[in-house]
């Protein structure tokens, strides 16, 4: 009897997760309907106008969708040489050695730093560098955000890739060495091809992180509600526009912000699912 109740409680907890997710989707969808109903889902998505002035009030998500994609992809691009080096360092060159666990600890700590502290650091330390480099006058913008985002996602991209690289069977590598290959040739022709799906999945997950990152970007991107004209320009991401304008919003604006939240949720969910699917296939092989 006691066992039955206990098992039922466990089941109930699982059902709660189902309800939670359903509730999340319901909350987002129901509170987006006002905006979607007014503008139409598709027109809302592709409209780059974001004009809260009462007389000409009009809201669209395109500026922020593009701002999000620019920052996230540029951050991903910037992070690759570093995160991939760390992955090779830990998963190949110094696999299992003391120095590698030291590097891992440092990377773990980087992952633990809160977004807002990254934002402060970006504002006070990196922004002056961006100004000195002449990238833009104020320092704020896509470029600054992407640099800081790139550092923030290094731990995510590298730690998973490390795992996949270190799973490459030793006998494959020895087979390649026995044919006279150098280390980099083994890495290029054996280790990377065998772990490629996993590595790609790690970078997709890192991209998902970058897409949803809020505080640091809010503090660094410049917060302008239009399509950024290139990497030096200021802009807003989907997450940063919500963080910035949610507090004082109501009516259509509030509903439009929640609709942007829904879109962000859908985009990150798709990205994460792709990565998980790839990883599931890898682990089955």
């Amino acid at each position, binding site marked *: 009897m006691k066992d039955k109740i206990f098992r039922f409680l*466990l089941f109930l907890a699982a059902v709660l997760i189902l309800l*939670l997710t359903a509730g999340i989707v319901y909350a*987002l969808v129901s509170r987006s309907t006002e905006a979607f109903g007014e503008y139409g889902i598709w027109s809302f998505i592709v409209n780059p106008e974001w004009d809260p002035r009462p007389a000409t009030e009009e809201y669209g998500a395109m500026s922020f969708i593009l701002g999000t994609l620019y920052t996230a992809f540029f951050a991903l691009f910037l992070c690759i040489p570093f*995160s991939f080096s*760390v992955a090779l360092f830990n998963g190949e060159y110094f696999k299992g050695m003391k120095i590698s666990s030291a590097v891992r600890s440092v990377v773990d700590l980087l992952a633990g*730093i809160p977004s807002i502290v990254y934002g402060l650091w970006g504002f006070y330390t990196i922004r002056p560098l961006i100004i000195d480099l002449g990238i833009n006058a104020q320092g704020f913008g896509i470029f600054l955000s992407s640099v800081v985002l790139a550092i923030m996602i290094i731990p995510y991209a590298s730690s998973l890739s490390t795992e996949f690289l270190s799973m490459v069977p030793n006998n494959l590598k020895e087979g390649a060495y026995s044919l006279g290959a150098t280390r980099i*040739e083994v890495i290029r022709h054996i280790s990377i091809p065998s772990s490629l799906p996993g590595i790609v999945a790690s970078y997709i997950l890192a991209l998902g992180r970058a897409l949803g990152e809020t505080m640091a970007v809010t503090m660094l991107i410049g917060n302008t509600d239009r399509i950024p004209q290139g990497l030096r320009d200021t802009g807003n991401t989907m997450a940063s526009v919500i963080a910035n304008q*949610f507090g004082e919003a109501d009516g259509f604006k509030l509903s439009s912000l*929640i609709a942007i939240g829904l879109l962000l949720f859908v985009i990150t969910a798709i990205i994460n699912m792709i990565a998980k699917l790839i990883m599931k296939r890898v682990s089955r092989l």
Partner: protein
Amino acid sequence: MKRSGIASIKARKGKDRLVYWFVCLFSFLAMIPLFVILYNVISKGYKNFNLNLFTKGTPSSMDALMAKMNGEPIPGGILNGITGSLLIVGMAILFSVPIGLSVGVYLSENRKHKFARIISFLADLLQGMPSIVIGIIAYAWVVKPLGGYSALAGSIALTIMMLPMIIRSTEETLKMLPQSYKEAGLALGSSYTNVVFKILIPSGFGGIFTGILLAISRVLGETAPLMLTALGASVVNWNIMEPSSAIPLLIWDFYNDPNLVEMVWSSSLLLLIVIFLLNGIAKIVARKWKV
């Protein structure tokens, strides 16, 4: 053709070395931000890192300005943020640990079950959800219906963030335990409930506890969802139905107030110390109670 390969051995080795040094250099460069951030936070934060920080609430902008003009230290601390973080995160722990553990046990016990697979998928979905979106959810669920910002709303947001992390770590840890543990317990005539509480969870304690600690340290620094839910308060608040501050929220406030901006560093320093401490404990626990 073989000759040409041998002739290029030097070039190939050169390339091999070059990549090796590239990897070392870029790995090293990837480490630098941590030390620069730590240096910045410590060197700018230690001045205001004093007893006041823990015993006094946020000063008003005016008081801070006066103190600054008189060349005195800023008269105040972040007590309201510390208590707020304790309240909000504490409640989130209270909500998320029992549910997360139960779901984790459920998933590890019903691996092949279709329903369990769906739940597992949903946990992944929740884990990847941006924190700002979670803020919106808690706003829609709690702030709107209750008619105002509250510590409760903040803790609901953090609960949604912690749940998938606790579920995953519990599930993974329990899956690693040998099946024979459970069978041995049941064979001794123990009830299923007892097997879970007296054998499975204690055996996997290291992994489960580590997961909880990491989840706590992750949400301690969360700012965005709290902006939409707990809002912030300039005084100490223990009422869960009232708006409340938290350390990261105060950092955000200070950042936006030129008179208080110096306090971002001491607050960040405290936040980092707590987070790294939790990470360190998690690492030690993981090593000590390895499955």
